[in-house]
């Protein structure tokens, strides 16, 4: 459509608005784009780091502009640490930490948080568990006390353990009503099999049904050790104040060794093309997830992979996949690709959804675009465009103190250099076409990509014929 659009338009202009234009300076789009600022992005005067004698690291990013405060603690182990038969233990543990701690049972803890208009949340990711409390800075005393209790003195009450287990089981069951979630789960299982990455972050019903509060207590003891954690605070608060409070609340936390890292996922995964259809006869759309093994968060080539992925499907409306699948063919509202970078290599995946009758066409278009990215060199102006996109938009992603803090904590969790935010734009601009070529050769494998499609199997199975061995499963 591009380029020829204006010519093919039969004078369908908005004539009412086209009248009456005075002489004006040339439009800005005729001028070259301004140079990209590559200076530091983190205000060093507001960033403070420290460490307690027991190894607990402290990070404070001060922001007195609004009277708010968020404090949290991240422990560097998450769901990846679970044995597959215990899938869901990290999420179960995190949730249970907020259901009674210190001198307060679940309701008393909820009340102290709610009465302050505050929020308390504990979440497990693949590589870390975060506990965080946020509210008004004038309530700093109460907020710190809540965080210290949740991190160090969770009660793990068996009755609460039963409630949380039932809640998690209900949520896992509800996920089966969401076609997108079903597609991703099916893909993960085909790519990773019995490895922990083969099951959802929240776990499996079988594993969750067997979890008890004592399991959470043991997992918490192993994972929450000071040398393996970082305490962070941001908002209207001073470093010295946080440091003093940390010393008082966490100074006597005894050091211990963190658990050994889990076994790495299989590679290559999958070894050959496989197709799985999750039968949902009621759906109007086929939900498509497609992919294979990817790279680790610390992979030295991650910048090239990031930019390559942006060219392919990671950059919104102007990615190649969006151009082909949405803008040219009108097959989908959205289509994206991503490398899920975890401590161990996570999946590369593409997701989209289209009317059932077009499922095969959409799969073919996606596979063809991955193949083109893998085989043909990226054009120099495409590389420049995604470099400018990443470097130019970087300041936007770090607008708030909470954004900056989250990014810094993520670096800590993965043991990446603490100045990574300040060097980010230079590293983006240093990526070359050769780097992209190498990344494409090594990290895009359409010929062995797994394909998961959720929708009516009766229509989908014949449509997907010839792509590889097809397995049909029920949700």
């Amino acid at each position, binding site marked *: 459509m591009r380029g020829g659009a204006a010519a093919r338009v039969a004078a369908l202009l908005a004539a009412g608005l086209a009248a009456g234009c005075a002489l004006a300076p040339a439009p800005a789009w005729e001028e070259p784009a301004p140079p990209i600022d590559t200076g530091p992005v983190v205000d060093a005067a507001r960033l403070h780091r420290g460490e307690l004698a027991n190894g607990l690291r402290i990070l404070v990013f001060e922001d007195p502009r*609004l009277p708010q405060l968020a404090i949290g603690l991240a422990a560097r182990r998450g769901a990846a640490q679970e044995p597959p038969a215990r899938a869901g233990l990290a999420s179960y543990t995190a949730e249970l930490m907020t259901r009674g701690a210190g001198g307060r049972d679940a309701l008393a803890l909820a009340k102290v948080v709610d009465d302050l208009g505050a929020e308390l949340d504990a979440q497990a990711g693949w590589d870390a568990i975060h506990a965080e409390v946020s509210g008004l800075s004038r309530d700093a005393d109460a907020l710190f006390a809540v965080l210290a209790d949740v991190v160090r003195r969770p009660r793990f009450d068996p009755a609460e353990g039963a409630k949380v287990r039932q809640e998690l089981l209900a949520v896992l069951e509800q996920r089966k009503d969401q076609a997108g979630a079903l597609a991703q789960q099916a893909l993960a299982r085909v790519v990773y099999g019995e490895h922990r990455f083969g099951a959802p972050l929240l776990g499996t019903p079988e594993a969750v049904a067997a979890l008890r509060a004592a399991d959470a207590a043991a997992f918490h003891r192993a994972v929450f050790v000071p040398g393996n954690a970082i305490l962070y605070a941001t908002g209207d608060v001073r470093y010295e104040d946080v440091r003093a409070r940390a010393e008082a609340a966490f100074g006597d936390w005894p050091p211990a060794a963190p658990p050994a890292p889990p076994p790495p996922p299989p590679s290559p995964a999958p070894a050959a093309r496989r197709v799985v259809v999750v039968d949902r006869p009621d759906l*109007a759309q086929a939900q498509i997830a497609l992919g294979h093994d990817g790279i680790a968060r610390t992979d030295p080539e991650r910048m090239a992979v990031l930019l390559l992925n942006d060219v392919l499907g990671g950059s919104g*409306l102007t990615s190649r996949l969006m151009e082909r699948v949405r803008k040219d063919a009108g097959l989908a509202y959205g289509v994206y690709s991503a490398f899920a970078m975890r401590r161990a290599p996570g999946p590369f995946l593409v997701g989209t959804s289209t009317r059932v009758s077009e499922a095969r066409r959409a799969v073919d278009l996606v596979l063809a675009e991955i193949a083109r990215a893998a085989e043909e060199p990226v054009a120099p102006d495409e590389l420049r465009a995604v470099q400018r996109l990443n470097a130019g938009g970087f300041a936007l992603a770090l607008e708030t103190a909470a954004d900056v803090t989250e990014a810094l904590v993520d670096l800590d969790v993965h043991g990446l250099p603490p100045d990574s935010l300040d060097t980010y734009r230079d590293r983006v601009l240093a990526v070359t076409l050769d780097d992209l070529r190498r990344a494409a050769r090594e990290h895009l494998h359409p010929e062995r990509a797994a394909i998961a499609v959720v929708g009516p199997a009766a229509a989908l199975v014949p449509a997907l014929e010839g792509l590889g061995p097809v397995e049909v499963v029920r949700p």
Partner: protein
Amino acid sequence: MRPGALLLAAALALPLAVPPRAAALDDPAARTRLTVLDNGLRILTLVDRTTPVVSFQSWVQVGSGDEARWTGLAHLFEHMMFRGTQNVPGDLRDRLLRARGARGNAFTSNDVTVYFEDVTEEHLPLVIDLEADRLRHLVISPDVLDTERQVVLEERRMRSEDSPQGRLIEALLALSFLAHPYRTPTIGWASDVAKVDVDACLAFFRAYYVPNNLVISIAGDFDEEAAIARLRERLAGVPRAPAPPRNPTEEPPQRGERRAVVHVPVRAPLVGAAWHAPAAGHPDAYALDALGEILSAGRTSRLHRALVYDGQEAISAYGGYWEMERAGLFYAGAGVRPGVDPARVERSLLEQIERLRETPPSADELEKAKRGLEVALIRGLGTAHALASRNASDLLTYGRIRPLDERLEAIRALTAEDVRRVARAYLRPDGRSVVHVMPGPDAEAAG
């Protein structure tokens, strides 16, 4: 915003019993400048040099509530605004903005269509020029319209047809509003989206995308004078148009409960209820917001306690006031735990509503609700984008930007009796609509 924030903090630190002093607050709204061009275009500017971002937003006062013949036209048209102009054809606009790291998007609601680009300051002139260009020189080709309608039909399948929550909202609106155009989903009915033509799009554009129906709101890190001058240069020459047409229909009073069941093979059924409530700008809005907080803010809220924590019959439960320009709703709902009868969850939900109609909330509950509303106001000041949105939304909805201290005062003045009064006045059993999304009698559950 930020210099004022410290004063706001000081004001909030007062014990709630002490009357707040409105004059003490340096509200960002007070530093917002409104410029009105001769053609009626309204420009809101708010400079905040403490953020690295400037948010540029165009708020067009047209939504699905204005559609006369083609449902979904306002939203489909929003898509067409990204498909090229005479001067900037095809996807050149996307490419230019992408090369500057801009973050943009658009959305359509019942009342407004909003376009935004968040950028760093040096790119604001480009954003302004591109916006002025598409308002003056938009191209709507039949080919592109055909592609884009397919995209919207996919969006509809994704968000409305294959989403149990989408099915619930669609049914609840159609049930609550018999007459008012809010009864149709913003994304439109599929058959209308499939048939709407270029002429309809152009007529819509000429009627509603006119300077006197548009608010441009800019907030963050930028040069205020230069931005206003550039907008004037680019858009002052566009003539004022006749006042855009509005649908005249008002909703007649509801006489009796309405019920609907939508059959979807879900594992976790959904229950939703809605009651008619005032349109935006009514003084009862604060009490209705407090009612929403008491019902569903946090784990100690009434619905969470009764349905999720104690009752263990729901996965989640919520209630709140939905304020729209021409009518309002109060809604409540729950995600039902698999295996639990949705009728039981409905009974529990409505029992909590009835309790609030009979007995005022406790002093503790009221204070918690007020605190929650205040914290939400402060959280809403955190980004340039949020500031620009607040200014434009307020101007379009209320005709002015409501000062923060006015809102804080109104929140603090609420009494328990106010909450009970609005619950009794609006959440009447014979004025509610109830929808269940659940498997049909003969359908096996999915999978």
